[in-house]
């Protein structure tokens, strides 16, 4: 798993908590289950067994969700041969932290591209620094953002 991989998500959900900010609730659940799974790679059935207990999901729903996550490049998959015949096994393209970092970076990058200095100012305002420190930090950030542009 490398950090260069760019997971495909196209929108940011303001009301979503944690991963749900980037993914649909079901997708987030599936990803959490896969990251939390002791065994990787996993089959659809294994994730279905986990989610069935908490959310009462149907197998086909989990299957199509995992298929979608594969298309979004959040999951990788291959065909394996076992007792149940031939089946897909899935594993995450990125570790959870790498994914979060990559997702936040992508959102930030988009914000900076669109709003530039405003983004830096807002970020600094969210910190608990003193007024002087904030001004200094804002100046430094804005210079760097201008250079990047």
């Amino acid at each position, binding site marked *: 798993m490398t950090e260069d991989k760019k997971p495909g998500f196209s929108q940011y959900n303001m009301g979503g908590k944690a991963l749900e900010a980037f993914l649909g609730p079901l997708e987030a659940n599936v990803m959490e289950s896969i990251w939390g799974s002791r065994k990787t790679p996993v089959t659809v*059935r294994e994730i279905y067994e986990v989610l069935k207990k908490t959310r009462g999901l*149907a197998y*086909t*729903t989990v299957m199509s969700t995992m298929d979608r996550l594969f298309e979004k490049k959040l999951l990788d998959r291959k065909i394996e041969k076992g007792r*149940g*015949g*031939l089946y897909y096994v899935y594993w995450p393209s990125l570790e959870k932290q790498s994914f979060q970092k990559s997702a936040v970076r992508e959102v930030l990058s988009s914000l900076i591209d669109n709003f530039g200095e405003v983004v830096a100012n807002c970020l600094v305002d969210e910190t608990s620094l003193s007024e002087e420190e904030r001004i200094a930090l804002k100046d430094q950030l804005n210079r760097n953002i201008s250079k990047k542009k």
Partner: protein
Amino acid sequence: MGFEGILNQIFQPYFYYSVIFLVVSFLSVKILTKYCSFLGQRTKSLLYLFPLVLPLAVMLVAFPSTGIQTTYQQIKILSTAGNNGAANSFPFGPFFPPPVPQVINVTSTVLSVTGIMCYIGLIAGALFAVSMVLADDRLARKILHVILLSQEEHQWLQVKITEASKKLAICAPKVGIVEDLRPNAFTIGYGKRATIVFSIGLLNILNKEEIVAVASHELAHVKNNDFFFKTISNALTTVSFFNPLAYISASTAQREREMLADERAIGLLEKPSALGDALVKICKAIQNLPKESMLVNFSSNLLITSSVLHRVGILATHPRLDMRLRNISAPKPHNNRWSSRNTRLAFVLSFLLIFSAVAVSLAMVDLQVNFTADFAASHYLKAFPSDFRVTGYQMGSFNGTLMPGVAAVSFNDAQSVHVLIYCPDPAARIRTSYAEMGDNVGFNPQEISVGGFIVISPQNPSYSPIQTPISLPDSIWIG
């Protein structure tokens, strides 16, 4: 275990007759089903169960035993009046009185390998049948990782299955899926516990019409009670697990059930050709996918009533694709003419086959008894000098009744023929001796000794007793 031991194992009635009956009845059924055009698929499939039932019937009548008990009679040659040299010399003819023989019955028991095989078959068959009936659907669902569909999943398919079930007057089975990417569908359980299972691979490659056609085929299996048919045929095959023909007979029976299910399924479909299209697509798809391992194939075949996957070979549980397509496109009309030439021929052939097989099997048993006796004689007379050749041995009989303990051993030393007879019953002895000699050796006894060995020489002018005394073994075994 020597050759005699192996023969003894094979000719145990519970093993020997179960094998012979299965072979003969299978060949008869094969002839009947080939030439009797009026036989339908259902009748044919039931006929193929018949060869599997016979070994069970044989084993229940002649119940297997774990040991084979053999009683040998040992003729112990005792000395006469303290003259050991005379007692142990041969021939005695010119030097009467002969030694006094003593017969000792010796019983030995050997492990019956065939008996143990029959026991294993009976126990495993019974366990299989009981476990299938009690726990098949749960067991199969667990082993095959079947996931039952909720009411919302593939709702259209579940509606179609319910409608078709009503037409067939059966309880609508549950619907499940397996993750397998190979296209397949099968049925597990029976009655209200029946579940039709589709693989993801099948749902991916077939259109809705074709999926419904496959579902109809599976529903036909439920309607035809093929769960019980398959359970019985597999259990009976397990009873005769040591006989390769049992597997062939069971597979042939199951192929007939597949054709029967196809015939019933097309009656349910608006477009019967959809079933043929589905089978063609499935066959094409699996050609590019890796095959199941033999073990997986075998174990899943025990649990499921029907799998649409097409396998080829003598043990295939499914008919060839071309045969199925032909059957689907134009089901063969059944000819009800019992008197047709082929039918008569089939019955005559079957009768002859059964008759000759019974005769041959009985002759084989007789042959085996004689062989064992000859074998025992030659084996136990090895102690004789090499210029003596054992030329015959047989159990004696009196008034047509086998007389245990009456035995004759003949051998020649290149100069003359000598026969030893021991007869425990004085009345039977002489008459038997004459008869046996006349029948088997072709000469009249010259000298007969009462109450012991009889040494007979041919009435041949050139006969001259052997001058050199020849040592006899201490004892001779009679099988």
